[in-house]
């Protein structure tokens, strides 16, 4: 009887978590995709950047869902660390190490454009490094709390 109740509570908890994670993913999608589409209309973006943009939105939504799904567990922080690492690699790749070069054909000639975004990229990497260190500290604190609780229960 107790076992069945526990099972039911577990399933209920899982369903609630999935629903919460799904709704959080949806909200993240709305908050990330639409403002970015307004800022960078997909028609104005070269194909490769359009693909990168879709990857960015997909990964942000994925990490939002997965961290929410595992919230309250150590995996929440592990995924937060993974997200920060992904963001750093993503931004470095998307910004081509800080120098974006484009060749645009204009009538009979070609125009070469070079945008130096190193300073901007540095800030983006810095913010993700801060997020990464925050997640590591949170994970440490979470483990410390768990150890403390288990030690108290043993006593």
């Amino acid at each position, binding site marked *: 009887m107790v076992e069945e109740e526990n099972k039911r509570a577990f399933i209920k908890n899982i369903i609630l978590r999935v629903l919460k994670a799904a709704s959080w993913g949806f909200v993240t999608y709305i908050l990330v995709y639409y403002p970015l589409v307004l800022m*960078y209309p997909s028609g104005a973006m070269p194909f490769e950047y359009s693909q990168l943009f879709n990857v960015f939105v997909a990964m942000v939504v994925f990490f939002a869902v997965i961290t929410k799904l595992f919230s309250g567990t150590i995996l929440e922080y592990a995924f937060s660390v993974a997200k920060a690492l992904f963001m750093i690699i993503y931004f470095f790749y998307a910004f081509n190490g800080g120098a974006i070069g484009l060749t645009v054909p204009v009538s009979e*000639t070609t125009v070469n454009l070079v*945008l130096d975004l190193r300073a*901007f990229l540095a800030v983006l990497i810095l913010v993700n490094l*801060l997020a990464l260190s925050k997640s590591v*500290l949170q994970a*440490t604190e979470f483990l410390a709390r768990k150890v403390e609780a288990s030690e108290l229960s043993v006593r």
Partner: protein
Amino acid sequence: MKQVIRALGWATSTLWIFIIVFSVTALYSVSNIDIGLGEAQIFASSEGMMFSLPFRIDNKGYHDISELNITTRVTDCNGTLITSSQTLVPLVSKGSSIETAHNISISLKDIMSIEFTPLLFSDSFFDLGTFISLNFAHTIPFQMSTNATILWGAPFYEFSTVKVSTHPYNSTHWEVITSLSFENHAFLNITGIIQLEIYNNINEQVTSGETSMDVPSGSRYEGQVITYIDLVDASRLTESGNVRVNFMTPMFTLEWWSPYG
């Protein structure tokens, strides 16, 4: 540890807000920069020609545009530098506009130099390299470069001299008629005087004369220079030799040697 985590949280949030605000305002600013090009003008003087391209930048955005540098390099078909021009605009502050012009000067003295003299007699092309750099919001350097080919029309295209005839003029002189022809492929009209000196095959000057020219751009010139030589000197005029031609225009004077016969 909680305080550190909280501080990191605040720092992360603050930086994200800064990044988002900067991105939004930067994109808004870029889309609100109004760049207008004026009508290109060509000024000709005795020292050369100047192409002037007026332009206007109206910065209606939230960020400054600084260190705007426009550089153009004109090289001939062999890559030899003909002229290089630079326009610097130190700052276009947010909400302000500037009006200036990029001037490309071509010195006739340079064009008349031995290196470029063939350009006066045969058509060619120039490479125009344009390089624009600026600093957006004092943090994002931007560079743009392009290359274009400009056709060069020679003012004395296919210049040729032909000694047409020599015949007695009067009891003391002979008349030498030398015909000249060329096509003015340049965009400017060529007006002035053509001075002609005929030298024989041992490089002695035999006779000289001059004629005027007024050749509109894109048209052909066919003229004659009639010179006279003393009967005594008639024998000095050989079947072949050289003609020294001086083109004297208000803009330049050019000396050219051409064989005849």
